[in-house]
């Protein structure tokens, strides 16, 4: 009984949870979402650039894209965040002011773009070569064909993977706390952590965890939904039709259809 009591006090102390809840909601959750969303948007843009470079026929585009991807995917996120967050602090100060917040977003964006670039590349390369060929045969140049036809198809195919990536970014956004954020800039983890130190139990962190789950769990279900929708296609069920009907139809429109056809 003592043990159970202890457990509840440590992890589920309602009082400390209620005390920290408003802060988690108005400061922590907001910052987590801002950091994650901004990193994702920048990551999507950079990722598309890296992907397009990566499938280029020119090695002067392909090789830098490869190195970039290998670098940011191969390093631990925390290392990248610290190197960029502290390494460029002076430089950042002259543009953004003293807060490490923008640098944290940039570091997360770079990491995200390496993963997103690979996702985009795989998606674009999975599009049937015939699509590009059909565009080219119609007189479109490579860029047009990619932008109008190939890339949209590739991107649609990898939507589930992109949502997964967004979930990963939300979780990784907790790492920017290493850069020492201002009080108003703290994200979920940091708010929970500070409160945990003050109250002497882990309940605020548990509540922070619950907030993470409230955001990420629906997203994982969104992934499943996308996955099903795109894997099975959206084909509407239709009554069985006869190919012969089509033959009759065609006979009706084309005066040329009648006559010798053997």
């Amino acid at each position, binding site marked *: 009984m003592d043990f159970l009591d202890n457990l509840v006090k440590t992890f589920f102390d309602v009082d400390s949870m209620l005390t920290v809840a408003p802060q988690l909601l108005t400061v922590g959750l907001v910052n987590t979402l801002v950091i994650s969303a901004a990193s994702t948007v920048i990551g999507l843009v950079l990722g598309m650039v890296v992907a397009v470079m990566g499938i280029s026929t020119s090695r002067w585009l392909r090789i830098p894209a490869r190195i970039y991807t290998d670098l940011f995917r191969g390093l631990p996120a925390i290392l990248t965040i610290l190197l960029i967050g502290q390494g460029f602090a002076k430089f950042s100060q002259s543009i953004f002011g003293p807060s490490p917040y923008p640098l944290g977003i940039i570091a997360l964006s770079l990491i995200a773009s390496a993963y997103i670039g690979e996702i985009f590349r795989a998606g674009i390369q999975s599009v049937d070569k015939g699509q590009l060929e*059909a565009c080219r045969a*119609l007189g479109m140049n490579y860029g*047009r064909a990619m932008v109008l036809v190939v890339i949209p198809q590739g991107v649609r195919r990898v939507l589930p993977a992109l949502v997964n990536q967004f979930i990963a970014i939300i979780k990784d956004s907790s790492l920017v706390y290493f850069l020492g954020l201002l009080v108003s800039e703290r994200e979920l983890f940091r708010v929970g952590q500070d409160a945990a130190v003050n109250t002497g139990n882990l309940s605020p962190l548990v509540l922070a965890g619950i907030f993470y789950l409230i955001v990420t769990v629906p997203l994982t279900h969104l992934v499943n939904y996308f996955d099903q929708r795109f894997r099975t296609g959206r*084909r509407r069920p239709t009554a069985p039709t006869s190919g012969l009907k*089509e033959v009759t139809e*065609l006979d009706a429109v*084309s*005066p*040329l259809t009648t006559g010798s056809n053997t």
Partner: protein
Amino acid sequence: MSSTTSTSADQPTFRGSSLQLKNLCMAYGDIPVIRDVSLEIAPGTTTCIIGPSGSGKSTLLRGINRLHEPSSGGVLLDGEDALRVRPDVLRRRIGMVFQHFNLFPDHTALENVALALWKVKGMPKSEATERARRRLTEVGLGERADHRPRDLSGGQQQRVAIARALAMEPEVMLFDEATSALDPELVKGVLTLMAGLCERGMTMAVVTHEMGFARRVADQVVFMDEGEIVEAGRPEDLFDNPRSARLQRFLSEVL
């Protein structure tokens, strides 16, 4: 053969251009695939290219519109050196139809036809849509304009693809086994449509396994093997009196 006898009022006629291949050579890497092919296709005529699998028929077609660049030799479109024109510009003058249709799956039939008119020819969107609708009606798909490719049969998809190519007002049409992926009962409709184009004055190069079509519609039949033209001539000559042993052998396998 390509007289304009049964052309109906709502089916436009075409002004096909001549096409000449002069000692054309093509290669993949350093492996020669097309070897010294010369061929003359008169304006408004249809040439059927037959030959065993791997003989280089598709490669030859892709050389004509430079989806794969020839390594040497010449292509003349309407007497003009096609290898000196910018490829994008050249391809606007040459329509191509593929075995697997290659329609854009996210777009309706109408959008498939209108896209290049709008984005390549720079037509206003409304005009492009208007013309696309007419082309679809001509291939018997006016009613299906808003269907996506996946909701169309193979035969219908291929007719959309033909309408898409025709909408660009090409001077020459290339067909690469346009009916090979179709269910048997749908083959006839597409072949009939192609025969109609031929009658209406389009210049066509048709790679096909449909010997009946070649015999009936072609002005000239070309038999290719191992990247070379082995025999070429009028269909009745090739089919009834094949001279080379290779063509005799081929015909005995496919007929």
